[in-house]
């Protein structure tokens, strides 16, 4: 589904990623773990085209998409979900949702998709015509995820879906995502600081440290590896 080879990226003089390889299996959840500043968000930004890499290639759905802009990648089936702060505060909940599916130019889907999302995330339905700035943290997170699903992606890049949320809320969101993967064959690349949460739902995981990949294995094996847990995951 997604293959990243030798990715190196910087913000000005600061190197954020160094020679990172990543393989994402179709229909699975792959977690990217690591401390703050390990390069997790940068990796997502490079994959989705927001940041140009210095070196390396990104292959998605069988083609080289390195340096393609995000608006083109969306049309190939990739959706990058920024942190919950990525709601457009000035727009209503419904406008945020519609925006996610607009590029498909399919009115029937806009209607069907919106009601589908309201079923999937009931708290959003009650606030459909409220401006997104009035939502709670959990509702914002639901909105950014639902908005990306409106584009009917094959690959979802998720940035810290549990950031700043009550454990119960983030557990709900994660469970919803797991269901989506199982039912629709959606592939997810999940960036998380909370390693315990991520490893409990993920099939595979990699660990980044200071911009380099230090571990790459099945999630349950990483979760069981004391050395990795102590050294990188703080659990």
């Amino acid at each position: 589904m997604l293959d990243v080879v030798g990715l190196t990226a910087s913000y000005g003089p600061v190197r954020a990623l160094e020679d990172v390889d990543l393989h994402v299996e179709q229909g699975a959840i792959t977690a990217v773990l690591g401390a703050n500043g390990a390069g997790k968000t940068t990796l997502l930004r490079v994959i989705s085209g927001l940041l140009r890499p210095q070196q390396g290639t990104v292959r998605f759905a069988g083609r080289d998409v390195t340096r393609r802009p995000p608006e083109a990648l969306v049309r190939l089936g990739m959706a990058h979900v920024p942190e919950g702060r990525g709601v457009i505060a000035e727009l209503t909940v419904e406008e945020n949702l519609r925006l996610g599916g607009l590029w498909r130019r399919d009115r029937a889907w806009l209607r069907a998709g919106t009601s589908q999302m309201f079923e999937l995330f009931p708290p959003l339905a009650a606030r459909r015509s409220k401006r997104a700035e009035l939502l709670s943290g959990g509702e914002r997170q639901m909105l950014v995820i639902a908005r990306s699903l409106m584009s009917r992606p094959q690959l979802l890049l998720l940035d810290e879906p549990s950031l700043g949320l009550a454990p119960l809320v983030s557990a709900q969101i994660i469970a919803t995502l797991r269901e989506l993967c199982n039912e629709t064959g959606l592939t997810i690349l999940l960036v998380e600081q909370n390693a315990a949460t991520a490893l409990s739902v993920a099939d595979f995981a990699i660990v980044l440290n200071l911009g380099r990949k230090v571990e790459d294995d099945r999630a349950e094996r990483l979760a069981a590896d004391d050395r990795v847990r102590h050294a990188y995951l703080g659990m």
Partner: protein
Amino acid sequence: MERFIDLTLAGVTSGAIYAAVALALVLIWRATRIVNFAQGGMLMITTFIGYTVIQHGGSYWLALAVAIVSGLVLGAVVERVLIRPVENRSPLSAVVVTFGVLVLLQGLAGMIFGGTPRSYPPAFSIIGFGNANHRLLFAPNDLWVVLVVVGVMAVLALVFRRTSIGLRMRAAAFAPEVARLLGVRVGRMLTLGWALAAGVGALAGVLVAPTTFVSPTAFDATLVYGFTAAVIGGLDSPPGAVVGGASLGLALSYVSGYLGSDLVPLGALVVLMVVLMVRPSGLFGAPAGRRV
């Protein structure tokens, strides 16, 4: 009382023009965080284009259409060719570019048309409503000005609120990076925003031309008042531009009628200062620091 009614009506007419100019500035500020000082030059050139159409025997309406279309094109070209390359530099670069465009356009107009003010015909009669004994300071042409500005505002509001292109444009203005992740072609939306703004500006130019005449510098005052109206409204808010324009038009009309027309520029300055002191972000602007 009669005098008050007269001044109010005159204020509404000029307020409509200020509102249109303010809207042209607000649309661009909202989309690109640039104060477009070239707006005065752009609407001057498009009015000259309309004037040329009339000189060659075209009707008022043909001239109006040609002026607006050339405004749309000019706005898009300025954004694509001149603003785009400096968009990611410091905000000051873009402002300097807009100043450059203003000077360039004024120079160009001076070379082609000379500095003598030319008269521009109104769409309708400029003789006030009423009879020979009593005429209001409000003529059919003033009614046309007010109606067309209100109409254009209503259409723009509908486009922004109710259509998918409007939704894209708002998303591109509020959160360009997120909009790109959702497949919005932000660059195109910015070009479209500049085009629309310049089109509204071109309309304002043609509407105000019968009173200011047409010359390279004839619209400087209009731009200053339009800018004042935009700041009163908060620079960020299209409804604010309308309210700012209307209130400035009224205030200046009263100043002119009761205190003397020499005091009008000073009056604009006082209104601006008071608004900035009481509400620095304008009547409709979000207080600074709200954005997160």
